[in-house]
């Protein structure tokens, strides 16, 4: 089965990105496909590459990047929500005149159309919010 996942909440403040991660891992290990994970609202902070948690805590952002690398999952950050919250890739940072970019590895910025398209292509959409 093909799953699409929408994550609406920020890591560390909320557990929902953790639950989404556990679900994703379980789905992949059971042989299902994760068509796309779309990060919206404060969920875009899951793609903040400057995230630096204490060493005795999970690294939510790095965990997503590793998952993307290992399974080739499409991690899409809503560009409009990201601009509001200061998540930018190198192109965007340059375009808006910021000194540095902070989009973590394995993520890409794109439009809301990617969420809708995932809804069309996948068999299921699960929303993790809070």
């Amino acid at each position, binding site marked *: 089965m093909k799953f699409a996942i*929408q994550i609406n909440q920020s890591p560390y403040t909320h557990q929902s990105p953790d639950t989404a991660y556990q679900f994703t891992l379980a789905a992949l290990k059971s042989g299902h496909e994760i068509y796309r994970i779309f990060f919206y*609202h404060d969920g875009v902070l899951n793609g903040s590459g400057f995230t630096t948690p204490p060493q005795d805590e999970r690294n939510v952002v790095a965990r997503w990047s590793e998952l993307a690398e290992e399974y080739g999952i499409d991690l899409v950050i809503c560009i*409009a929500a990201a601009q509001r919250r200061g998540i930018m890739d190198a192109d965007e940072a340059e375009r808006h005149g910021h000194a540095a970019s902070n989009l973590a590895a394995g993520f890409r910025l794109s439009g809301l159309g990617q*969420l809708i398209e995932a*809804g069309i292509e996948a068999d299921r959409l699960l929303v993790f919010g809070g």
Partner: protein
Amino acid sequence: MPPQKKKFLFVNRKAPYGTIHAHEALEAILTGAAFEQRISILFLDDGVFPLLKEQNSGDIGLKDFSPTYNALSLYGVENIYVDEESLIERGIASDELSIKVELKTTKEVCLIMEQQDVIFNF
């Protein structure tokens, strides 16, 4: 044969201003409208508050996005449902809403949800 259109339901359950959820949900709906699927919107629980007329957010310094709901019909969104009980619970009469909607009973709301292919939550 073109692929079959899916039934999409966008469920709004959040009040405006206190959080950005209602505003960003609207952005997603307007995007969704361009994809030529069968789109419905449901305003449920606190999600009915963004539809109130006479909003004026100037003094709190936030953008008033309530006029944007009027554009839904131009974007081709046909089914706009409001849960009647949510209105009653919140002391709102249907003529206080800024757009034309279809009022639905709890029973009808349940059925609308069940009949969807995909539900988007914000």
